[in-house]
């Protein structure tokens, strides 16, 4: 399709931009632009057609099945959007006096209270913009904690090999040395390897539980104990909280600091821009270092506090506030029982889909999974030449989103499915039938899978060129 710049016609315009309701300010002459902005010129009709066409090329959870593993692409209830669009939330200015935004501050306060209850944490910040930013903030907290105790020789963060790629990246960004430890045969943390890895230089451990194979680590209490006994702290990556929300709590497992992806577990939009929210929760001993400002409840109402030992700000103002509005709305609509039921259904759906697909493909781990599972197409590739990539691309042709591919790295031809709780049995039955047919087609018609997708707006993009020479902006003719 044409880019918006290619649709531009000189002199075309529309009246969507409101008139300025403040007096025009004057700028010194030398700071004025000398040329006009090269904005596309379109009439409202053309503009509307452009965005409608664009929307038809996109695929969201509103279009169909979206089993993108570890991303929790659940349906986001419309009521969340209604709440977030209330003028009292949407039209606020972040610098308004506190007395005029008590309701918004109560949203932050109540969301913190409920999420701390769900995770067994003591305090929480909503500043981080999304998951990896939450990880980085959590690691800064761990660093601040050790430094305040004059224990700054603790420079190592232990990360299992099944971790999300962002974990080692965040640790390295924070100046820590990453120590990778292997998984055991069941996909959990290798306890002996962990024991051998911890020591006086251990700052902490980063763990996702359930992990990326969809396995809840049965040794979790022992794992956190080993790290604590060595003097380290335990970080919980909340990417997979949808498996346990309302049923098990990271704080009870021995974690000291966690991040939550409100845009995954708590049903706020993500993919295609979000914005996200990587709320970070901590146990008491880390609370003094939390980013500021932090909402507190006092006799006079809600106030923003800045603790003396706070890290300061990690993002402008209070984070992505309207995402917190949506998450709070979601939690209040479901209630405690509803949240528990949601994660139970997420696990049930994943196991149901796993059993439907298992006759046609090896599952990477034995036994029950949590909210997601990984298919191992290694044998299929060896026999037929059809790869996980081919099957994922063929799924696009069938009108569904692909699962997460080639992750976790410990499974070579991995397809990771996370159906979430918001899919019906009927949808899962249909999806399984389609995927099973594709897995069988690997043996009967491998060419079809190699050539997929053929029915999508874009075929197979050149991944190598896209990574090495990405075209990120429009090139004007007269440049």
């Amino acid at each position, binding site marked *: 399709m044409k880019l918006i710049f290619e649709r531009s016609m000189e002199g075309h315009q529309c009246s969507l931009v409101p008139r300025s309701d403040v007096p025009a300010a004057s700028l010194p002459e030398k700071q004025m632009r000398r040329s006009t902005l090269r904005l596309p010129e379109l009439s409202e009709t053309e503009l509307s057609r452009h965005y409608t066409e664009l929307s038809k090329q996109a695929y969201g959870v509103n279009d169909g099945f979206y089993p993108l593993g570890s991303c929790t692409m659940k349906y986001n209830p419309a009521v969340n959007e209604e709440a977030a669009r209330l003028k009292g939330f949407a039209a606020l200015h972040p610098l308004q006096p506190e007395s005029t935004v008590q309701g918004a501050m109560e949203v932050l306060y109540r969301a913190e209270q409920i999420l701390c209850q769900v995770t067994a944490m003591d305090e929480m910040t909503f500043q981080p913009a999304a998951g990896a930013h939450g990880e980085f903030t959590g690691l800064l907290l761990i660093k601040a904690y050790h430094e305040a105790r004059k224990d700054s020789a603790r420079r190592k963060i232990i990360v299992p090999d099944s971790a999300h*790629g962002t974990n080692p990246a965040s640790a390295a960004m924070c100046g820590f040395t990453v120590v990778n430890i292997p998984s055991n045969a069941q996909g959990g943390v290798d306890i002996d390897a962990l024991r051998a890895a911890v020591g006086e230089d251990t700052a902490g451990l980063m763990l996702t539980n359930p992990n990326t194979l969809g396995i809840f680590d049965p040794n979790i209490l022992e794992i956190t104990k080993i790290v604590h006994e060595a003097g380290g702290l335990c970080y919980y990556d909340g990417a997979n909280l949808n498996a346990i929300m309302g049923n098990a709590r990271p704080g009870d497992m021995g974690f000291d600091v966690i991040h939550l992806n409100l845009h995954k577990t708590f049903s706020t939009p993500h993919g295609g821009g979000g914005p996200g929210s990587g709320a970070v929760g901590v146990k008491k001993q880390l609370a003094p270092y939390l980013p500021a400002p932090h909402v507190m409840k006092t006799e006079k109402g809600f106030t923003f506090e800045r603790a003396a030992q706070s890290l300061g700000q990690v993002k402008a103002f209070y984070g992505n506030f309207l995402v917190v509005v949506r998450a709070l709305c979601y939690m209040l609509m479901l209630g405690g029982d509803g949240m528990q039921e949601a994660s139970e259904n997420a696990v049930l759906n994943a196991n149901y889909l796993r059993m439907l697909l298992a006759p046609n493909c090896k599952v990477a781990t034995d036994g029950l999974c949590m909210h997601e599972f990984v298919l191992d197409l290694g044998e299929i590739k060896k026999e037929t030449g059809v790869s996980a990539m081919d099957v994922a691309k063929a799924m696009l042709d069938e009108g569904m989103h692909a699962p997460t591919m080639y992750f976790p790295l410990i499974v070579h031809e991995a397809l990771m499915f996370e159906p979430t709780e918001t899919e019906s049995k009927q949808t899962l039955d249909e999806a399984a039938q389609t995927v099973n047919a594709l897995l069988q087609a690997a043996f009967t018609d491998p060419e079809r899978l190699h050539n997929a997708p053929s029915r999508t707006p874009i075929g197979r993009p050149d991944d190598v060129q896209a990574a*090495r020479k990405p075209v990120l902006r429009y090139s004007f003719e007269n440049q």
Partner: protein
Amino acid sequence: MNCPENLKYTKSHEFVETLENGNVRIGITDYAQNELGDLVFVNLPQAGDEVTAGEAFGDMESVKAVADVLSPVTGTVCAINEELLDAPQKINENAYEAWMIEVESPELEDGLMDAAAYAAFCESEK
């Protein structure tokens, strides 16, 4: 299985080629490049840097994954294959010609495999 007889191999899929002057060249194996898929970036150390057996000296990014490259030897880097920085696809085209670093007066890690042992190891990995 493409693994030349004159090379030594690691379990993490690097190869070691011993040159006539005693220096060694290190790269990744054909099996490794095939598993990684099309490479898009390679990060290498600089000449003069020290490498330590068992520790990463560089990393590479493919369309599928990012992976460290571990050094099978301890010693000083005397040359890097700069061509790879702009053309990592050379590794996909011919992994054994696309050496990454050359190390002088190296101490080789214990337990390097010969071609037959490496081929058997890869078979067991599948």
